[in-house]
């Protein structure tokens, strides 16, 4: 049985933990709204871009298609771009992303492919390093900036494209969380490079029957467009990550606050009982002493 003083200490320590989790929850709730707004604001650009891509990709096909669209022709070396958060305190989000990445990696290795990792964000490093220490190619640090913006996406995309052009890998996959709600963030695996051909049906609809004039030429435009598309894809992933992190953090911290409250209640009851027991014992002692006289 813990002494009264010890119990009091524990109650106080749980109380201060609760204060921290509550503050973090409120911060996450405020940030979530901003992150969601940012994710929504980015949508028009992505939509227009993929619309244009679809109409162009349908026209430029065969041998003339750029490498980013057609691929290297091989399918041997795979690169997994895993987007994790920089900060913890967001429940199972990071371990879910890592799990999805590892499942994909295992499937590819089982097929006899070479797999390497390109990690974005701090929290994916340790768990992936544990299993695939020799396969990690690079870490991209996003923890220095408060809110990853288009510059970071641009930097990542440019580096990926450069490596691709050099022939360091054949296929790149992007692993990132998709923000569904504060309760659900689904880790998703998408093919990033070569750019997957958009559905042909959409292309015909978007292009219509009208003859579109291109300047300079269709292929030149497509060549400009593809890196931009990769960048947008990464930017979208970063924004989704941001929203997911705040959402997951809000839920996790809400749970933690509630658990702390329960614990405080339990400890308080225990504390009161012990105190009562001590008082009763004291009384008995006094009465017994009085009777003995």
């Amino acid at each position: 049985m813990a002494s009264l003083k010890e119990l009091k200490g524990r109650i106080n320590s749980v109380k201060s933990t609760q204060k921290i989790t509550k503050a973090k929850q409120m911060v996450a709730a405020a940030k979530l709204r901003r992150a969601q707004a940012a994710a929504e604001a980015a949508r028009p650009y992505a939509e227009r871009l993929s619309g244009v891509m679809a109409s162009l990709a349908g026209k430029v096909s065969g041998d003339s298609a750029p490498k980013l669209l057609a691929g290297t022709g091989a399918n041997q070396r795979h690169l997994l771009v895993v987007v994790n958060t920089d900060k913890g305190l967001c429940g199972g989000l990071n371990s879910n992303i890592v799990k999805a990445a590892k499942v994909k990696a295992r499937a590819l290795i089982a097929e006899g492919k070479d797999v390497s990792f390109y990690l974005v964000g701090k929290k994916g490093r340790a768990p992936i390093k544990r299993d695939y220490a020799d396969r990690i190619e690079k870490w991209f640090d996003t923890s220095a900036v408060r809110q990853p913006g288009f510059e970071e996406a641009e930097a990542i995309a440019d580096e990926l494209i450069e490596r691709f052009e050099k022939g360091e890998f054949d296929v790149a996959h992007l692993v990132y969380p998709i923000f569904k709600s504060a309760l659900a963030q689904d880790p998703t695996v998408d093919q990033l490079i070569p750019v997957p051909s958009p559905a042909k049906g959409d292309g015909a609809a978007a292009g219509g029957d009208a003859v579109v004039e291109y300047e300079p030429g269709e292929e030149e435009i497509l060549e400009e467009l593809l890196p931009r598309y990769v960048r947008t894809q990464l930017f979208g992933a970063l924004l989704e990550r941001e929203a997911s992190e705040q959402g997951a953090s809000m839920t996790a911290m809400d749970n933690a606050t509630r658990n702390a409250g329960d614990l405080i209640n339990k400890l308080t009851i225990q504390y009161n009982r012990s105190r009562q027991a001590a008082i009763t014992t004291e009384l008995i002692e006094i009465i017994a002493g009085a009777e003995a006289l």
Partner: protein
Amino acid sequence: MALHFELVTPAKLVRSEDVHMVVVPGAEGEFGVLEGHAPFMSTIRDGAVQVFKTEGGAPETIEVRGGFAEVGENGLTVLAEHVEG
């Protein structure tokens, strides 16, 4: 009479309005877009997009970097990577 003009960056939808004419700095030269322009697509070089709200009025200039312009049935869409100001 009015041309629907949209300027979009990855971060947000900067403009979406009906204007008279827009002059876009295309990769092979500037071109002006009025209502009813034939379908057209071009990459753009870094420069200023000039937006004429009314005929003969003073243009509003928006500096853009990197991207392309698309003219379709629904008007002109400029997709730019960066917009200044």
